């Protein structure tokens, strides 16, 4: 059972994510947060043990994705968790900023359900990054086509 965290303020996106996750054959447990503040509180309460991955939307009320990412990387018990940015944007500056703040991967939210499932599956099948290891910039953006 893989523990997955998802932080996204868009309820439809959360539902779609949940549907896609359920249709995968990999057994998972999903913890959802409506914004960054909620995510950080939940993480603080439940870790350890650390989750397999956090899917983090960038554009969120109260505390956005970048703030959460920075906080996670600066919190001792959270800093080694795999963080996957999951955003509508594919803007270069956003990708670069996320990389510099220490995210592991960047996925642009897909426009078909099939691709969504594929994206989640790819992340779930990935190994935990060894401690302190950083993804190379070329592999950072996950292209799903």
């Amino acid at each position: 059972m893989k523990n997955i965290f998802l932080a996204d303020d868009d309820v439809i996106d959360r539902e779609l994510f949940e549907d896609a996750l359920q249709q995968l054959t990999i057994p998972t447990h999903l913890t959802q947060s409506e914004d960054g503040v909620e995510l950080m509180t939940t993480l603080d309460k439940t870790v350890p043990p650390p989750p397999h991955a956090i899917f983090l939307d960038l554009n969120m009320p109260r505390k956005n994705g970048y703030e959460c990412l920075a906080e996670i990387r600066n919190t001792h018990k959270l800093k080694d968790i795999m963080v996957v940015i999951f955003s509508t944007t594919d803007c270069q500056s956003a990708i670069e900023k996320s990389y510099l703040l220490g995210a592991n991967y960047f996925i642009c939210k897909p426009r078909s359900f099939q691709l969504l499932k594929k994206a989640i599956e790819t992340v779930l099948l990935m190994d935990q990054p060894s401690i302190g290891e950083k993804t190379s910039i070329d592999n950072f953006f996950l292209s799903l086509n």
Partner: protein
Amino acid sequence: MRDRIRGSILQIRVVYFFTTIFLVAISFYAYFQLVHLIDSSHMVSHTSKVSDSLQRIAKSLIDAGSNHKTYLLVGDSALLSKRDQDFQTIVEELDVVDSLTQDNKLQNKNVKYLRKLVNKKFLNFRSMSETYQSVQISPAFKSSLTTGFHQTENLIQEINKMSAIEYQLLEQRTKHFDRLAYTTPLLNVLLSLGALLILFISYFRLDKALDVSNQLKLKLEESNLELQNKNENLIKGGERYLKIFDNNPIAMSFAEIETNQVIYANSLFYQSFGFTKEEVIGRSTEELGIISTEENERLISIIMNSLQEERPLEELKVLPAEERATLLLKLKEKMFENGFEILYTKKNGDTFIATVNFEVFDIGNKKFTLASYQDISEIKKVTKQLEEKNITLEKINKELESINYISSHDLQEPLRQIQIFTTRIREMEDKNLSPEGHIYFEKMNNAAKRMQNLIADLLTYSRTKTEIPKFKSTNINQIIDQVIEELAEIILQKNAIIDVAELGDALVIPFQFRQMMYNLIGNSLKFSKPDENPYIKITSEIVDSSQVAGAKHKKGMQFHHFTISDNGIGFEPQYKERIFEVFQRLHSKHKVAGTGIGLAIVKNIIENHNGYITATGELNKGATFDIYLPINQTP
């Protein structure tokens, strides 16, 4: 002046002329007087000579008588010859008198008569001696008689000797006198001539000196005249300056440093400060109260700071004018170079801000300041309004940008969700859909796709406007390869050929450059002829700024020139500018799927690169895009 000089010269000449005449006259007079004197003296000596000779005749006559008488007594014949000698002397002397009195008829007659008488006497003596009979006298008497005779003889001889000496002296003196009589007039003439010469020399000297002084005077006169003209011009100039000063569109005042009193001010000064001329002249700015206490405090603190003066203000206020002028100049150098803003209070209490500037002047031994006050209240007001408007504009611009960005971004989310749900329906409910339902779904999908493109392009457009560009030396061929890879599907589908030359490295904003190439190549593929395989050629070269169309860069600047040309449907040449404007589409939506933003993005990117782009084309004969990017980018 000139006439006066001429008059004095004439006077001097007249004086000299008369002096010369006078001198000559005196000389002549003296000469003739002298000659006359000499003549008179000659006459006197002539007369004395005559009377001398006459005396000698008389004496010789007495001698002859005496000798004769003695002979008669003694009978010595020697006495007779002596008597005859005496007569001989008388005849000689008579000759002398005769020659001397040649010019005197009366004396001449007398001489002739005298000569007759002498001859008669002589004949008488002769007859006496011939008829003579010696008489008997005692020998003693004879001897004493002879002795007496000899004594007389000796006496006479002595007298004659003295007389001869005197005569000799007379002769000598007469000669001397004659010499003098000859030389004195000559000397006199010479002296006169010398005096005349000196007179002439002194006259010519004086004349020359007068001439020189005359010239000097003329020059002086000329320079005087010049000075007078200059003075007049100065006065005229001064009046003109005063007029400029008076009518100057900037308020100005002229004040003496020592007393700080305003001496003069122009009309605008009175107008600006609301005082009359009478109220201003002779009063200091402090007395006028045009600077409020608060403003004065503010100014003093600024002035003290900028002067870095250690002396207290009270001491500075009573400094002599000279030192105050130095301080003012220092102040001017430090703060007033571009004017200094001061808040002034008018007579009626209204305030206005003016830019003040001043200059320190020396006139005579006094020091003055000429200050100008330019009312900038209006400018300030307008500037403030402009600044406010600018801030508002900037705010609006930022808002617009963020609205553009956020709406584009936020618009994508529901669209993406619609797209996901359509794919889900097609996957799960496909068998439940009618054939029409399939067609509608397809159309809905296309519409969503077009909207997706539109939003993506808008987003890119807004990003190219707002993102801070980062230049990086990049291999252009690598970028083109990436683009071709991205466009692989449509390239394959349209069987297109993309001919890329060796493009080398260039200093570009990599992400934007890729976007630009994507748009341009994408455009060429999109606007290809349906019956012809697309052929796109990309080349590059390095050119000088002179070959760059529309470039305003300095000479010698080098550019990368990239050319992208195709064999597509082209465009009508008159649209070559318009195609770069946002939402300007040359083809209907139905024919070709385009958002109308692609080339506007390209244009933005080119501008971000400080470059130029031109499009050339003809309908159905392809299009060519020429891109010029500077080789060096100055930050």
